[in-house]
């Protein structure tokens, strides 16, 4: 009898212990179940129908560093020529030019130049000076828009080809002459040839027009300049 009761108690204890042992893994089991459910919900939310990944690819992308491309739109240079100042003869002129090439057709150009006027025929004959030496300096600057209207190539022999262009120029600026500064319109044209991609040689003609009352009558004066120049692109 006593043995029967012991067996009964032992059975109850073993059953309880087994239950407790199985209960201890319930927490992890529930966590895992919750995780799986969350994953499923996330996958559903993303609408991802793709099968689970077997291998996670660890591909390292090549990083491309893009070197800066050198642009050759800026052109600067010097020019030298002859300027015919109305009533004051033709005299040497030297100048500086800077241009920015906006498209293959158009460019924006700034010019600065200086010359020294000679004598009018009246001054030569009468020996009376109309202007002081400092007033004889003819200094101008202008801002112009240029248009390459006849681009082409020049061939020297069989192997050498150089690109070239005729261009038209027109713009506004100012001229300081005879103790006064005048608003000046300029227009002209030129021819440019490039022996290499970064050097250009120019021949040009330009007219600078401004209102002058220097000789008593208010009139438009035309001052025509012919020049040669060399510029570099960078």
């Amino acid at each position, binding site marked *: 009898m006593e043995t029967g009761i012991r067996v009964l108690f032992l059975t109850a204890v073993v059953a309880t212990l087994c239950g407790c042992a199985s209960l201890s893994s319930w927490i992890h089991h529930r966590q895992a179940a919750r995780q799986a459910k969350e994953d499923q919900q996330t996958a559903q939310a993303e609408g991802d129908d793709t099968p689970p990944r077997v291998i996670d690819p660890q591909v390292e*992308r*090549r*990083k*491309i560093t*893009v*070197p800066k*491309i*050198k*642009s*050759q*739109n800026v052109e600067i240079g010097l020019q030298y020529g002859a300027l015919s100042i109305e009533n004051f003869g033709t005299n040497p002129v030297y100048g500086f030019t800077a241009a*920015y*090439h*906006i*498209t*293959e057709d*158009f460019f*924006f150009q*700034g010019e600065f130049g200086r010359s020294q006027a000679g004598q009018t025929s009246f001054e030569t004959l009468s020996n009376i000076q109309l202007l002081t030496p400092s007033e004889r300096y003819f200094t101008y600057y202008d*801002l112009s*828009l240029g248009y*390459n209207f006849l*681009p*082409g*190539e020049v061939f020297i022999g069989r192997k050498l*080809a150089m*690109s070239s262009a005729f261009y038209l120029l027109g*713009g*506004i*600026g*100012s001229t300081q002459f005879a*103790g006064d*500064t*005048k*608003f000046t319109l300029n227009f002209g044209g030129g021819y440019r040839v490039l022996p290499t*991609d970064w050097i250009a040689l120019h021949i040009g003609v330009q007219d600078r027009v401004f209102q002058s009352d220097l000789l008593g009558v208010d009139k438009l004066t035309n001052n025509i300049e012919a020049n040669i120049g060399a510029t570099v*692109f960078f």
Partner: protein
Amino acid sequence: MQRLRTVRCLLLLLLLAAPALCGAREYLQVFVASPYLELHTGPGRGYPVFHVVDRDKSVDVLARYTEWFKVRTEQNVVGWVAEGDMLHTVLADGSPFTFNRGDRAGFTQHRFEMGMFAGEYGGATLISAYGSWSFNSQLAAEVSVGQFLGNVSNGVIADIGLTHVFMPEWRWSPFVMLGTGVVHTEPKATLVQPLNRTEQTAYVGGGVRYYLTRRFFLRAEYKNHVVFTKLNSNEVVDEWKLGFAFFF
């Protein structure tokens, strides 16, 4: 002994710097993604096509001149490729080759712009030029210089300020300006007030810009300058001008 060491150090430095001094330059390599890439003899639409690069072949980009790229092929052939054709090339990682273009998107957002104007400053004829640097598509810092030539006086003005563009994506986009500057006035010698003077100014203004084509746009603007004179009252000068500008 000391001198010898210095000489050695210098020689070593020279050796290290040699590649840089020799002008070793790394060029951008792009791959042809279209059926072929045409190379022209010069940077212009009229120059003939003299060479063709096949798909998946690479070219080195040597330089850029306006809307043309100078490239060198794997066979060492050098030619010019149009900007539109370069859009169909890719970088080594397969991503498309992108660059700054002269179009409406460029008009909306660009870094630099320059322009020239003709106009009127207090009744005198004005010649002016400006340059600007954009912080973003709407706000830019601007510098402008000008010369005015009048019957009473001549002079130069220089301004620096900020410009805010409303609706930069519109073809007609209005803007407002605010800034400061100086004006140097030279009265004509025949008048009573012969002294040249330089005075500080402040201005507020507005205007409109209109996209023409490619990199060009028109710009019309008005500025109201207050000139801080040494007299009892300040002077107010109106400036109107119209000109063309380009962005890059």
